């Protein structure tokens, strides 16, 4: 676990140690603790080891510095997280839609997003088109 | 006396145009068109007349003579026709450019000089007109400044080398035969030794080789074609470069004499075969280099070199079929390339001077006339059946095959396939593919551009379906050279080994086309869609995101690019640098300081004194 403000420094120090491959950036919605857990998975080709870094940010104000200055390939992962969890990555050059076609009020991967209600409201409302009788 | 008046009109018209331009620009334009059309009509009226020898001037005791015969009429007609068309084309194209009086004067002057060249019957007037042509061409090439200036200088340097060679040739001829009139020289040269003849032919060969851009001497051409104003590029490629071909014809067959020209094989290994092989190389390499080009005009310029090779090949091979093919190809190629340059000009005019093939596309819907012109032009350049070049290329191939020179024929045929690739790139990247968004609102080309394009397009089809029209004139030319007459009829050539019958091909394609068209009509009617409605793996791709024109032949380039280099250009560049270095060295001696010069004078005086005294004073 690392602190939110220090995450860049921590990543940098790991990178300098030889963990130079950012495998992915992920997120877990800890709704009971009112927190998002951001997970960085780093690996090293030389050592053949994997390191998992975690940091927690608040759910109300989900902001975290972008990891792009350290690992450039963080860009698509962070776009994805922004889209699915609504996390703001400060300093990210383009947080444009990546995967989703529709706009959702609550980002769909948050645990308080009620998919069944959403499906009923959106997809089931669309009428069938009947044949002529 | 008509020739004299004709030339006077041509030169006088050029200067009058300049002064009219000071009065009114509209008047100048109309007058320029009027003069060029008058010349065309006047030349056309000369059809069939020949051997009209008369003197018009005395020069150091030699009379200067003009004449017209079938050869000069053929070239004169083409010169005046293309001159008139390109002046008409200039009307809109050059609108708003500066120094137009000068431009129109030079255009007319170049035409006049070319008419002078083809009508000249003695070497002095030939040389004078040749020089007028070279210099006015130089001024027109560097007309637009900037990049055009080095191109012009390159041209004029090469051209001067050629002129000097010709000058030496003329002097040597005058010393030996005491005459400058071509027909008299031809009579005199029969008795000359064969070494001397080769010397003369090589000297003049360099001149005309530079002008018609035979392979190692071609370096001036790509830049010059690209940088000059497009209507003049058309003249340059269409007729001016072909003056070299006229020169070859004149010196090989009129001056040296056909019978002699093929008898040199005793001394050196067949002079004309060397030329043939130069022609073959000139066909193959430039057409492949043309594929690499991304500038529309430069692409055409390399074709200008490549197609020149066919003419040299046909002319140098010198059977009646091959000669007819070579001369016919001169005309046919000129029609095609003038047409293509005009289409490029129309595109350039509407797209704001863009002719980069990577950034254009889809203009067919906006400029149908220019497209039709370009389509027919490239078909002609390839030599598809029913276009004019097919006949001339067929003649050349056939003579090469029947005379058992398949390797030359191979070079010629491969050149054709290289041509297909590069000109298709030209057509596709200009007119087909996707229309970029910024050209959404382009209008059609103006009428003054459409008229020449339509005239030349119809000429391509006319001469393609009825090749007998130009072939009849050419037949009189080759019989005047002493070759066997061809069995020409209106739609082809009949000979003992395989005949050509364009009317058969025409009907076959026509019938096949109409049958297929009927079949096409039988099917369900198709539904017109725009270019946006296009299969893109299910995605909707808006305009401007959809272009595949850059690196059109990328897989091929991976293979051929290392072998395609302009070695001649590199060599001349190296020569240039050597001379520059040498001159820099010389400049160190002439430092511009008076003190140095005094020192030099003293030094040389001392040296002279020393030499004079023979070292005795010591």
């Amino acid at each position, binding site marked *: 676990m690392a602190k939110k403000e220090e995450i860049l420094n921590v990543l940098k120090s790991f990178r300098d140690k030889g963990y130079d491959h950012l495998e992915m950036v992920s997120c877990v919605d800890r709704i009971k603790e009112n927190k998002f857990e951001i997970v960085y998975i780093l690996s090293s080709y030389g050592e053949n080891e994997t390191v998992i870094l975690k940091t927690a940010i608040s759910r109300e104000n989900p902001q975290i510095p972008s990891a792009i200055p350290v690992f450039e390939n963080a860009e698509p992962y962070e776009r994805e997280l922004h889209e699915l969890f609504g996390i703001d990555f400060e300093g990210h050059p383009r947080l444009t839609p990546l995967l989703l*076609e529709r706009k959702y009020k609550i980002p769909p991967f948050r645990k308080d997003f009620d*998919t069944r209600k959403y499906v009923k409201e959106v*997809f089931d409302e669309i009428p069938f*088109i009947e044949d002529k009788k | 006396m008509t020739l004299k008046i004709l030339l006077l009109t041509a030169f006088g018209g050029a200067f009058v145009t300049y002064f009219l331009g000071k009065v009114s620009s509209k008047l100048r334009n109309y007058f320029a068109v009027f003069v060029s059309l008058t010349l065309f009509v006047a030349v056309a009226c000369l059809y069939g007349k020949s051997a009209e020898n008369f003197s018009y001037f005395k020069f150091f005791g030699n009379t200067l003579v003009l004449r017209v015969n079938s050869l000069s009429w053929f070239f004169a007609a083409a010169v005046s026709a293309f001159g008139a068309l390109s002046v008409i084309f200039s009307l809109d194209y050059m609108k708003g450019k500066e120094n137009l009086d000068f431009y129109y004067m030079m255009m007319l002057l170049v035409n006049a000089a070319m008419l002078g060249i083809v009508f000249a019957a003695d070497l002095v007037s030939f040389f004078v007109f040749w020089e007028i042509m070279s210099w006015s061409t130089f001024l027109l090439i560097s007309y637009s400044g900037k990049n055009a200036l080095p191109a012009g200088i390159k041209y004029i340097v090469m051209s001067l080398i050629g002129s000097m060679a010709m000058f030496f040739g003329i002097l040597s001829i005058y010393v030996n035969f005491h005459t400058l009139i071509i027909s008299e020289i031809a009579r005199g040269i029969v008795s000359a030794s064969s070494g001397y003849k080769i010397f003369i032919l090589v000297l003049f060969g360099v001149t005309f080789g530079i002008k018609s851009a035979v392979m190692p001497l071609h370096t001036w051409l790509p830049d010059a074609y690209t940088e000059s104003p497009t209507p003049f590029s058309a003249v340059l490629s269409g007729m001016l470069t072909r003056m070299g071909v006229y020169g070859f014809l004149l010196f090989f067959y009129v001056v040296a004499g056909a019978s002699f020209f093929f008898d040199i094989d005793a001394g050196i290994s067949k002079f004309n075969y060397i030329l043939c092989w130069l022609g073959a190389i000139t066909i193959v390499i430039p057409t492949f280099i043309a594929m690499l080009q991304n500038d529309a005009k430069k692409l055409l310029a390399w074709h200008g070199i490549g197609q020149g090779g066919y003419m040299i090949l046909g002319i140098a091979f010198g059977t009646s079929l091959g000669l007819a093919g070579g001369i016919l190809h001169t005309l046919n190629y000129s029609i095609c390339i003038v047409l293509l340059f005009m289409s490029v000009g129309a595109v350039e005019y509407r797209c704001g001077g863009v002719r980069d093939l990577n950034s254009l596309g889809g203009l067919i819907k906006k400029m149908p006339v220019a497209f039709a012109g370009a389509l027919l032009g490239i078909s002609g350049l390839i030599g598809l059946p029913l276009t004019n070049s097919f006949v001339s290329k067929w003649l050349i191939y056939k003579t090469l095959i029947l005379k058992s020179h398949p390797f030359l024929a191979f070079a010629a045929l491969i050149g054709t396939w290289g041509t297909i690739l590069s000109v298709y790139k030209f057509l596709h990247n200009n007119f087909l593919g996707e229309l970029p968004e910024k050209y959404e609102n382009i209008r059609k080309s103006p009428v003054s551009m459409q008229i020449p394009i339509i005239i030349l397009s119809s000429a391509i089809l006319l001469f393609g379906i009825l090749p007998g029209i130009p072939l009849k004139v050419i037949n009189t030319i080759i019989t005047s050279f002493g070759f066997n007459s061809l069995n020409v009829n209106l739609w082809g050539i009949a000979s003992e080994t395989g005949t050509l019958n364009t009317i058969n091909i025409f009907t076959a394609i026509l019938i096949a086309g109409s049958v297929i068209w009927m079949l096409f009509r039988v099917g369900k009617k198709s539904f017109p869609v725009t270019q*946006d409605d296009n299969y893109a793996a*299910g995605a909707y791709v808006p305009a401007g995101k959809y272009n595949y024109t850059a690196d059109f032949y990328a897989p091929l380039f991976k293979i051929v690019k290392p072998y395609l280099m302009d070695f001649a250009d590199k060599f001349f560049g190296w020569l240039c640098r050597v001379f520059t270095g040498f001159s820099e060295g010389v400049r160190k001696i002439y430092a511009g300081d008076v003190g140095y010069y005094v020192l030099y004078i003293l030094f040389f005086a001392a040296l002279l004194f020393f030499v004079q005294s023979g070292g005795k004073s010591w």
Partner: protein
Amino acid sequence: MDRNKISKWLKEPDKMSGKYSLWALYFCTGCGIIEVPPVLTSRWDAERFGVIPVATPRQANLFLITGYVSVKTLRAIIRSYEQMPEPKYVVGFGSCPINGGMYWDSYNTIKHLDKYIPVDGWIAGCPPRPEAIFVAVTHLWTLIDKGMAKGYVKYREKYELYRRNQEKVLGTLEWPPLFPIKDDGK
């Protein structure tokens, strides 16, 4: 070929040729596509029935939707369907396009394909066996024979409704309508 068939060929060559030459566009959406390669290749050999895969919708007249349809794929499906020339038939393959299947409560998967484009036949199963495709094809033949596979006609007639449904899910579509929409002031 029996005599009955010959007379049929002479009477309605369009129907007969359309029947025996179904060129299929496979839309590789979900897991159902894994069943398609065996169908095409040596084991089951769909070419016996005249069914061959083609690469573009312009050439196809049979559209196979093989698996769940997410919102993003729906856009491509509509686009491809509209680019297919008429007559054209759509077959939904597997339970997902029928009613959502195991993705019945997904936030991003449309549940009923026939709300957006007309479907002429369904193949149930999760995923169905390759034989089921042949059953579907032969069934489609009878439907064509009886003139019941008229999805494309329905699409043309009720294009407004379809387009409205599509736009409800996808937002405004970028491409212009395929058929002119009667503007009834709404």
